[in-house]
């Protein structure tokens, strides 16, 4: 049994790490032809090219980061209040509202984005960064609401009443009582939301019309053009925020899993 478990663990670890290995090697390879198991020559050139202005990677990186930050900020602003309502109160029609908020997580983006594009044309939001930020809210906002409703379900609002009776104004209560209590949740939720936006492909493609070239769009382009070395370098850059966030949040990174446990209470 123990033997079997060890074997299973080795298979699992290999399977998880394996697809990343050729990607990483390619980013340091020069002329890695069939059938060599490793590149004949090692080089930093793919990285140098990826980080040079002409490749457009840096531009895409800035664009992707900006879009993800904007979508996250909006999600926090809109999602924290909604999370409070769903986490703290029981009311008629709550199940329906939960369903309305959950639906965008499950419904494939392509079905929504194609219809939205025809509306955005009229609003001149098509092919714009603003349009892309807005469409990214479709998957990011529900996640933020989910995370926050979990946080608020575990938060006792009586401490706010206590603070009020001790002479705090509503503003002071929010600033000194509510915010510190929910801040860790907001941070975890925000990092998660950031990653959700960071990973979007089809929403950006449809609404951005190819003009708003985020990192995944650029990565796809290089991947299909056979530039494996540059693709490897961009791929490594592209997974970096996820790795950082994983290290920062350690084991809290189960935001998507709160979609399973459902809303608080």
């Amino acid at each position, binding site marked *: 049994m123990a033997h079997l478990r060890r074997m299973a663990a080795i298979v699992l670890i290999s399977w998880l790490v394996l*697809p990343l290995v050729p990607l990483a090697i390619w980013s340091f390879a020069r002329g890695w032809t069939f059938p060599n198991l490793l590149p004949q020559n090692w080089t930093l050139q793919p990285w140098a090219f990826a980080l040079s202005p002409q490749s457009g990677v840096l531009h895409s990186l800035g664009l992707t980061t900006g879009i993800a930050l904007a979508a996250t900020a909006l999600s926090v602003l809109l999602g924290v209040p909604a999370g409070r309502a769903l986490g703290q*109160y029981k009311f008629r029609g709550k199940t329906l509202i939960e*369903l309305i908020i959950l639906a965008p997580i499950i419904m494939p983006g392509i079905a929504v984005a194609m*219809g939205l594009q025809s509306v955005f044309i009229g609003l001149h939001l098509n092919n714009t960064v603003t349009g892309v930020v807005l469409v990214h809210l479709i998957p990011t906002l529900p996640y933020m609401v989910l995370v926050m409703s979990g946080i608020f379900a575990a938060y006792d609002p009586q401490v706010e009443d206590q603070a009020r009776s001790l002479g705090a104004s509503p503003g002071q209560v929010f600033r000194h009582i509510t915010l510190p209590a929910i801040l860790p949740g907001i941070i975890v939720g925000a990092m998660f939301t950031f990653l959700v936006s960071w990973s979007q492909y089809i929403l950006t*493609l449809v609404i951005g019309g190819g003009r708003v070239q985020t990192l995944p769009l650029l990565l796809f382009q290089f991947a299909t053009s056979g530039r494996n070395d540059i693709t490897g370098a961009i791929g490594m850059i592209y997974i970096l925020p996820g790795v950082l*966030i994983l290290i920062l949040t350690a084991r809290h990174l189960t935001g998507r*899993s709160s979609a399973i446990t459902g809303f608080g209470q």
Partner: protein
Amino acid sequence: MQDRLKITLLLTPALTVIGVLFFGGLGFSLLRSFNYMPIIGMNDPNLDAYRSVLASPQVYRSLALTLYIAATSTLIASVLAVATALLLRRSFRGRAIASFLVHLNLTIPHLVGAIGILYLFSQSGSFARMAYGVGLITKPADFPAIVFDPYAIGIIATYVWKELPFITVITLANMQTLGNDHESVARTLGASRWQAFRHVLLPQIMPGLLSASAIVFAFTFGAYEIPALLGASAPQTLPLMAYRGFTDVNLASHPQAMALAMLIAAVSAIMIALYTRALRNKRRG
């Protein structure tokens, strides 16, 4: 009454945004699938797009392929995820690494996974090179087509790689909440290891597992970039077909693309229904 007002105020901004963007988008897709678009002078809604879509054998092949990919990926990922969760539940040497990789994988975009699978499994990829090294093949073309192939093995491999950790994390959290006392009781009551799993643990993790599987199914059914990168040129999956129609210079093909999008949405809606049912059962239990 005051609570009611407060709840309304708290919910309105988020619901408005989701309502306008999500339901608005979906609604417009629906209207256009009925050939209804007053702005460009299409004032008579009809079912032409659906008629032509449902008459096309290409669409059925595409639907079959898409369902096959989603079902196979979900099934394989779910079964392996339960096994992985059972493995990670125990302590063993290397569990920390395995657990870190499972979580790391959650953060990696699907596209990167797909490229990794491409570089591993393509006919000039790492595995082909290894096969050459041990003398199994003499040229790249001898290596079996695992990507761009009709069986969509590369696509399924990517989904299994990416979704296995997702289902694992949920199932493992579930198992850890449950603890293993129930299984211990079952064991002393005469249940074998398998019986304790089958009759005691599995029924208890099932609601969470079903919910996770529903999400994975809906995602794999509607995803674009992975089949776009790894799929064969024909048949294509539904999302690819829809997007192709959508970007066609011939505006007449747009309603058909929208009808395909509605088909995708309908399948996902069924998944949402199953998901909420599982969630309700879980709460009751």
